Structures are given as structure tokens and as C-alpha cells.
């Protein structure tokens, strides 16, 4: 269970490749999400390639770090990272959403080794992570539990019930990351201060202050800056066993990041790229013809 270490350049190359796999796989399946998988990509790559203590050849190891994708609709983003990290052959991505596949529209822990929790109904993952962290403490195990949430998702009341419990029990072995991509699926019309074409789910509210009010430590980062991501993950994980309180990383990202026509457009929450769009994206991401989903 070695710590893998990918350089910033390697992560950049992986990110371009992974973003292309997301776009082309979803187009091939004829269904799936785009914006969220692309916005979270740099965070997931940093976790899986540089921080999680995991072993792709032994995905159920007791002492592995846990990862919960609470925003389960962005499954294709996680599948892509798992494939590139060696959990399964990237060729299997072509089965996504086709029926009889381990790669379900939302992650299924009973089907795909490497998925620590089934998700899809938003707002449940933080509770799951709190349970894992409590269990680890009871069993005196030293793994860390990570959970990724969407900024629309944290409108769900259950998230805040879990936030309360995590700090009530002083859990410093759990870290929440919020993908602050500034958009949800539909939301509200944009106002003057919004970054994108619909209203930021938390416009006029201070998410950091809310978490602090619940007794959490808060780290704000640029969710596409490898150095900042790296430092934040290190700090959060380093708090384990000493901080006595949970940490949340608020990662400011761009929904649809990396492909010009999907960036910051709420309609690309999900969608199928046309052949022309695929060609443009492939060029932007610098991917050769041979890479991608071929059926």
C-alpha cells in the first residue's frame, strides 16, 4: 500500500486524459453527467494518485483509506480515475450505462471493487463517512475517511445533520471536500455577482462560516491548483489524531472544467457531445485519435 507520487506534470497529463474519457464515454453511452465529473477531476486525481493509502490490486484491504463519492451522479469521473489508477482496464469504461455493467449510473459498492459506498441519492455520503470514521475510532484503526460533496448537494438537510454529528464526536479522521463549482442542475437565474450562467447555490451565504459554526476547521483552496490541493489534503490528513475536530476543504472549481464549451454552463450538468464537439474537445485536451472509448 505504497504512497504513489505523481508530479504536477503527470497529474496535468492524467487530467487531460481523464477529462477526455469522461466526455467520450458519456457521449458513447448516450447518457451521463459532464460538468461535475470535470470539475472534481483534479481533486480526485490528487487523492487517488498522491494521498489515499490504497492498493488497487487489493481493493478491500481493511486498513485502506476510505473514499465516499457523496455526489454519486458524477460516478463516471470516479470510474475514470479508478481505471487510470489500475483498479480495472480502462476499456471497461465503454460498458458504462449500457446494461449488464459494473459501471452503474451511480456508484454501486456491491458491483465494483474500489467503491467504498453506494451513493446516488444526494446528501447521504457525509453521514456514511461519519459512520466509517466512528467505526475506525472504535476499532483503533488509523485510516482516513474522505468524502466529496457537491455545492448543490449541501442544500440537503441530512448533510448538516452529519456535520453536527462529526463535530459532536470530535472526528478528526474524516475530511469533507466540497466541489464548489458554482452550479447545480437547475437552480436559480444568475445575479450580477455570479461566476456562471445560473446563480451560485451559496450566493450571499458564507459556507465557510457555516461549517465553522458547526465546529469544523475550514480550508479554502483553488480546486484546480495542484499545489494548493496537495497542501490542503496533507493538512487535513495531518490533523488526524490531534485536531479533535473535522476538516472541510472548500474547493473553488469551474463546472465543466477543461473543455471550453462545457465550462461554466449549467446545461452541461449532463449532456451528450456531438461529433463536432467531441473533435473540438479532443483537440483542446490534446488527446490522440487512438485514445478514448471505441466500440
Amino acid at each position, binding site marked *: 500500500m505504497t504512497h504513489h507520487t505523481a508530479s504536477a506534470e503527470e497529474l496535468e497529463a492524467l487530467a487531460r486524459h481523464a477529462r477526455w474519457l469522461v466526455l467520450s464515454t458519456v457521449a458513447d453511452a448516450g447518457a451521463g453527467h459532464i460538468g461535475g465529473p470535470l470539475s472534481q477531476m483534479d481533486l480526485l486525481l490528487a487523492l487517488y494518485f498522491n494521498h489515499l493509502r490504497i492498493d488497487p490490486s487489493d481493493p478491500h484491504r481493511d486498513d485502506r483509506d476510505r473514499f465516499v463519492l457523496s455526489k454519486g451522479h458524477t460516478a463516471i469521473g470516479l470510474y475514470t480515475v479508478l481505471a487510470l489508477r489500475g483498479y480495472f482496464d480502462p476499456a471497461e469504461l465503454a460498458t458504462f450505462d449500457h446494461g449488464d455493467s459494473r459501471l452503474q449510473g*451511480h456508484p454501486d459498492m456491491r458491483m465494483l471493487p474500489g467503491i467504498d459506498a*453506494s451513493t446516488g441519492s444526494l446528501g447521504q455520503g457525509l453521514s456514511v463517512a461519519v459512520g466509517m470514521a466512528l467505526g475506525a475510532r472504535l476499532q483503533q484503526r488509523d485510516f482516513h475517511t474522505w468524502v466529496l460533496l457537491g455545492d448543490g448537494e449541501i442544500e440537503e438537510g441530512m448533510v448538516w445533520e452529519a456535520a453536527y454529528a462529526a463535530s459532536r464526536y470530535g472526528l478528526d479522521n474524516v475530511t469533507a471536500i466540497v466541489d464548489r463549482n458554482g452550479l447545480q*442542475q437547475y437552480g436559480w437565474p444568475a445575479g450580477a455577482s455570479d461566476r456562471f450562467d445560473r446563480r451560485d447555490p451559496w450566493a450571499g451565504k458564507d459556507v465557510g462560516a457555516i461549517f465553522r459554526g458547526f465546529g469544523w476547521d475550514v480550508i479554502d483552496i483553488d480546486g484546480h491548483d495542484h499545489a494548493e490541493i496537495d497542501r490542503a489534503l496533507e493538512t487535513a490528513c495531518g490533523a488526524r489524531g490531534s485536531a479533535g475536530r473535522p476538516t472541510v476543504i472548500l474547493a473553488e472549481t469551474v463546472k465543466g472544467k477543461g473543455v471550453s464549451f462545457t465550462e461554466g454552463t449549467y446545461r452541461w450538468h449532463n449532456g451528450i457531445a456531438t461529433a463536432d464537439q467531441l473533435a473540438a474537445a479532443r483537440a483542446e485536451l490534446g488527446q490522440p485519435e487512438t485514445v478514448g472509448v471505441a466500440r
Partner: protein
Amino acid sequence: MIAQRQVWGETLVELGASDDRIVVVDGDLANSTKADLFAAAHPERFVEVGIAEQNMVGIAFGLSTLGYRPWLSTFGVFLTHRALDPIRMLVSQTGAAVRIAGAYSGLLNGRSGKTHQDVADLAIMRTMPGMTVLAPADEHEMRAAVRWAADHDGPLYLRIARDAVAPVFDIDTTWEDWAPRMLRDGGDITVVSTGVQTSRCVDAVRLLADRGIDARHIHVPMLKPLDEDRLAGLLGERVVTVEEHTMIGGLGGLVAEIVAARRSTQTVTRLGLADGWSESGPDAFLLDKYGLSASRIADRIVGVHSRPVGTPGV
């Protein structure tokens, strides 16, 4: 062919122009459910509450106390399952005029898979006292149902399919009453269906005719309240229920209850989803694999028909 969700949205726009009691409360899915049509036409009576289904129900109930008749808009599963407690306490127990739109009902939901499939909505909703439970067969009956709902007092659940099916009824369909309707008479077997599965059953019954089985076909557009005597009177000796729903507690359960309670001699075979979870996949794949396509239904009914009369149903 127009999808039921499209008709639902368009009809609300039309009704909303003259009926300002109609409000729509959305859970960040208006562009999926087609409530976005209403948001564009009547923005002052469209309330986006974000991803918070229990909150949606509470807000809708609060609005109803001031004379509004709110429609809830999200994937049905997040209402009938996740928000069930506020539905039972605030809506069913008070008889509030809240309309629960069960969008993306059943198995077919654009490949989202089992997390989003609502295959128990009819079973759950029909246990709610005072709840009207509607499951129209096609776009035209959907339009009629939404119009009918406008003047209905009390809570209501409306099952809405994501994808279009072949129409069963005419464009100007309006029902005097929502009792079970016979779509075709036949002496060999009685097929009872509900929701858009009725459209697929019309095809299945045609396939049966080609195979020499003369089926009576009954559509149940409203599972509750239900004129049970009327339905019982339409049932032949051998009854097969068909629904895009778990075989437990939905239409099949309802018909079995009616037959058993009357100590009738009919055998009831419930065709629906077996007691298990399904998966993500294209519509045609799912209908075939889980036995609900017209041809799979026809095959399954032929199997039932080949058994001697009196063989217990399943």
C-alpha cells in the same frame, strides 16, 4: 408521441394562466421534470427550493394552508421514499391539496439506474389515507388527469413517465369518472394494467391475438379511490396484472386483495418487477431484461394461459 412529463408541464402552464392557486415547488430538477415550462410562463408562482425534498413537502403544505394547490417537482423516488414522513404527516394526515408529481416513475429513467427508479410508488402511496393515486396510460390521459386535478380537493399522487409511449387514447380524452376501463373484450384471459405499461400491454394483447389467445384488457388509471366492485365485475376466470412496478403491493397486490377479500375463484398472476433491484441501461434493454416489453409480456401471459384453469397464480 409526446412524453408524459412534457404534457404535464404544458398543461400546468395552460391551467396556471387562469388558476392562480397553482404553484410549482421544485427540487433542482425543473429542466428534467419539465416544470421549467411553468417557471418560464409563471415565474411568480414557481418556487425553487433547491435539493431538499423534505423541505419541499413542508413548504408546499404551508402554501396549501393559504389556498394554494402546489405541485411538487422532483424525481418521484425522492418524494415517495425520502420525503415520505412529511408526506404522511403534513399531507395525508391533514388532507392538504398538495399534488405529488412522481416524475421519472418506474424503471425507465434515462439510465440513472436503481438509485433513481421508483418501482414502489403505487404500493407506498396507496397506503396513505385520503391520497388519490393516478397512473395515466399515455400523454392524452395525462393531460386529462392534470386538468382533473385542478379542481380536486385533497392530496394526490400522479405517476409520470419520462419517455413517450404509443398513445392508447384520443387527444380529446376526458373522463367522467376514473374507474377501470375495458380497452378490449376477450374470453381467454383478463389482462389488467396501469400507467404507461398499459400502452405496452395493448401491443402485448395484439401479439396474444396473433397467437390465438383472446384477451380482455382492462386499464386502471386511478388506483385509489377505486370502485372495487366494478373492477371485480370485469375480471374473468384467469387474471394477469401487469405493471412497471414491483409485483408487491401495487396494482397486482390491489387486484389480489380484491379477489381474496371476495373469496372469488379467480387466479391472479402478478407480472411486474421481481423482488430485487435493477440497474442502469437503455429503455429497451431494461424492458426486455426485466420482462416488461410487449413481447416479454406476451410470452409470460402465454405461459400463464398454458397452465390449467385453477393453477395458482404467482
